[in-house]
């Protein structure tokens, strides 16, 4: 494999694994604010117990997010040295701002959130919970700004030529509020809320099926449904907005999403299909005719820019992007259906009646995780062959001084470590969930009863 491909694979693998955790932190953060807010308002101990339980789960996902996130902060330099020199002036600023404005806020108040129950008063504790939640969202703000700049660069100019060319900021706010920042941020944010909401929904439904911790499970399930319903509908809106921005600023990506080749044709909206990239057509597909034209232009008869408008070397891979994109959309729709069903049952007073609904709720935790992953794959692969859209090609951006062997080494190293971590994470999460929100004291230690190894 080429150095370029390995650098991409290594980066994609580490960032995809990292991205399991931040959405959970962001989503759970919002729910913790609601839970603890309910406790402060009602003084009902049940909410305190619920909050403490979810704080422990939050701490676990947060630790995983931190551990895998440190890697990301440095991998731009390790894998993409040429890119880093080219865009450091612009991209580095957003990354540094993330550190100063988000990470310190998050990590500082996390200490109070997790360990400060007996150290500060209830109001100060609640304030800390709010700050952790705010911090996790601020972190999303800056990293999405940085990524959006790679999709729709703005507020910069190119200085120098050849080897020494680089992008420099001309207008900081134009860089921050580049054309896709706000829509993409809201899309990412509601994806994260969905990840958190379905986790709480899933665990609560599991307790209801097992007939355990019923009071807490019922209340937590309702809280999660409120967020789920809001976020899934908001996601439809932000997804639509996002698609409109993509079609305007990254038409090749939009064309790949829908495998639309002919610029003079009105475009259908596929429900599913398989793209034959040789023959430039969609096979086995079912589509709503003219729908894409309507969604983008608000008119059924306006043509949409197709892939043939771009030279072959300027097109992203089509079928894979098409599949990622459509899987994301399908899951988004499924989540809307789920939340409508849940809200309806709640309204009819039958939310906890049907085991099938509870079972689906248990499984629902996987849906936003998959959608978040494939959504990012569609966004990033759809931007190819560019690393910064229209400015710098991915094939020019990798570290020239890093060898294939080094990349294989780190890819295998992280594959082993992350497989192990993932197994441990699932194991500990499972244990924690089975242990439940009982107000028991510490985990007993068998430490002293066995032979000492390291003394």
């Amino acid at each position, binding site marked *: 494999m080429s150095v370029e491909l390995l650098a991409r694979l290594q980066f994609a693998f580490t960032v995809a694994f990292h991205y399991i955790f931040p959405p959970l932190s962001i989503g759970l953060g919002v729910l913790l604010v609601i839970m603890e807010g309910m406790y402060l308002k009602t003084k009902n101990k049940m909410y305190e117990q619920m909050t403490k339980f979810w704080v422990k789960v939050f701490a676990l996902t947060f630790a995983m997010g931190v551990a895998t996130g440190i890697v990301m902060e*440095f991998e731009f330099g390790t894998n993409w040295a040429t890119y880093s020199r080219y865009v450091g002036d612009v991209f580095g600023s957003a990354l540094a701002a993330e550190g100063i404005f988000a990470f310190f806020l998050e990590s500082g108040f996390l200490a109070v959130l997790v360990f400060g129950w007996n150290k500060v008063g209830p109001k100060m504790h609640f304030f800390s919970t709010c700050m952790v939640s705010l911090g996790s969202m601020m972190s999303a703000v800056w990293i999405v700004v940085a990524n959006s700049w790679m999709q729709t660069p703005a507020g910069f100019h190119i200085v120098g030529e050849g080897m020494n060319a680089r992008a420099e900021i001309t207008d900081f706010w134009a860089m921050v509020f580049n054309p896709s920042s706000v829509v993409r941020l809201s899309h990412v944010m509601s994806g994260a809320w969905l990840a958190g909401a379905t986790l709480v929904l899933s665990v609560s439904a599991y307790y209801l099926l097992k007939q355990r911790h019923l009071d807490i499970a019922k209340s937590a399930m309702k809280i999660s449904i409120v967020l789920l319903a809001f976020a899934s509908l908001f996601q439809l809106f932000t997804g639509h907005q996002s698609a409109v921005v993509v079609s305007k600023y990254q038409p090749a990506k939009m064309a790949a999403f829908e495998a639309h080749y002919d610029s003079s044709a009105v475009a259908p909206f596929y429900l599913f299909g398989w793209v034959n990239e040789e023959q430039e057509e969609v096979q086995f597909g079912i589509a709503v005719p003219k729908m894409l034209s309507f969604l983008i232009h608000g008119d059924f008869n306006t043509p949409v820019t197709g892939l043939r408008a771009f030279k072959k070397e300027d097109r992203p891979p089509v079928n894979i992007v098409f599949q990622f994109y459509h899987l994301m959309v399908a899951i988004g729709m499924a989540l809307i259906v789920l939340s409508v069903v849940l809200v309806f049952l709640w309204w009819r007073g039958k939310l906890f009646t049907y085991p099938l609904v509870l079972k689906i709720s248990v499984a629902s935790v996987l849906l936003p995780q998959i959608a978040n992953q494939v959504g990012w794959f569609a966004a990033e692969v759809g931007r190819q062959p560019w690393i910064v859209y229209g400015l710098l090609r991915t094939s020019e951006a990798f570290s020239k*001084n890093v060898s294939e062997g080094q990349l294989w080494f780190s890819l295998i190293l992280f594959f082993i470590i992350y497989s192990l971590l993932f197994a441990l994470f699932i194991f500990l999460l499972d244990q924690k969930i089975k242990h439940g929100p009982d107000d028991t004291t510490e985990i007993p230690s068998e430490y002293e009863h066995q032979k000492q190894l390291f003394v």
Partner: protein
Amino acid sequence: MEFTGLDLNLTWYILIGALLTGYAILDGFDLGVGALHLLTTTDEERRIMINSIGPVWDGNEVWLVTGGGALFAAFPKVYATVFSGFYTAFMLLLAMLIFRAVAIEFRSKQPMRWWRTMWDVAFSFSSLLITLLMGIALGNVIVGLPIGESGEFTVTIADLFNPYAVLVGITTVALFMMHGAIYVVMKTEGAMQEKIRGWINNTIIFFVICYVTTTMATLLYMPHMAEPFKEHPTLFLVALAGMLAIANIPREIHHRREFFAFLSSCASIAALMSLFAIGMFPNIVMSNISPAYHLTIYNAASSQKTLAIMLTVAIIGLPFVLAYTVSIYWIFRGKVRLDSMSY
């Protein structure tokens, strides 16, 4: 070399230096606690060790992450050159940082002895290796790197383990062990405190031997690090302040004023980092091929506009950062008490 006025480039050199010094002081003690971890024997002692840094280690590491981000923003060429050049070593360092983070989080979540011992070992060895690798990286920056005309270099792991760099690595381990031991004494009481108090003298002796050796080796073999001090003799005061701070540590320990010993230890780290920064100035990394390829605070920097914007960001952000840091340490002051939310 001359010190021109305080321009933006110099300001950022100092600011990144301050971030990394903050990192060395703060993560320094929790890495030191990790390095000493396996010397404790009972489960309770080990839990106290971990929980003494429990609420703060994560925030301490943010100083490194932010330092990395700031380096990317202010000196992108340094960020690109150093991290791609140290590729394999850096991946190992990242792997160790991951293990350490999860070891702290996972250790006390299961009752089995093998489980706890496994994570104790992971925590301690990763802490040691992180410290050693960072020290070795620093040592190699002092030695100089084979940066060519393209502004890039590649070194193998074996190249990194040259005697001088290893000496700096071991000195860093000794420094953080001393720093960590003093911290644990502040956070513990009773028998455990007495036990760890007994270690402090050993760690001080270990550090002083390393410190003197490294200083001699630097003067003998890395004379370029001494040039700025020859040209500006007043800078020798920094070295003097460092020595006084180090000398004050055993004195404060003797009088059982651990907090002041800890402050002295912090001051020593700050002085050592300053000596390093002054010795390197105005270079950030030096080429051992030709001085023309040195990456300096001028040829490796972002545009003046970006440096100015980032300075605004820092001026807005840093007071908040300091406020959080101070309040967290204030809230969690005093001796460690284990409860149901502890690790």
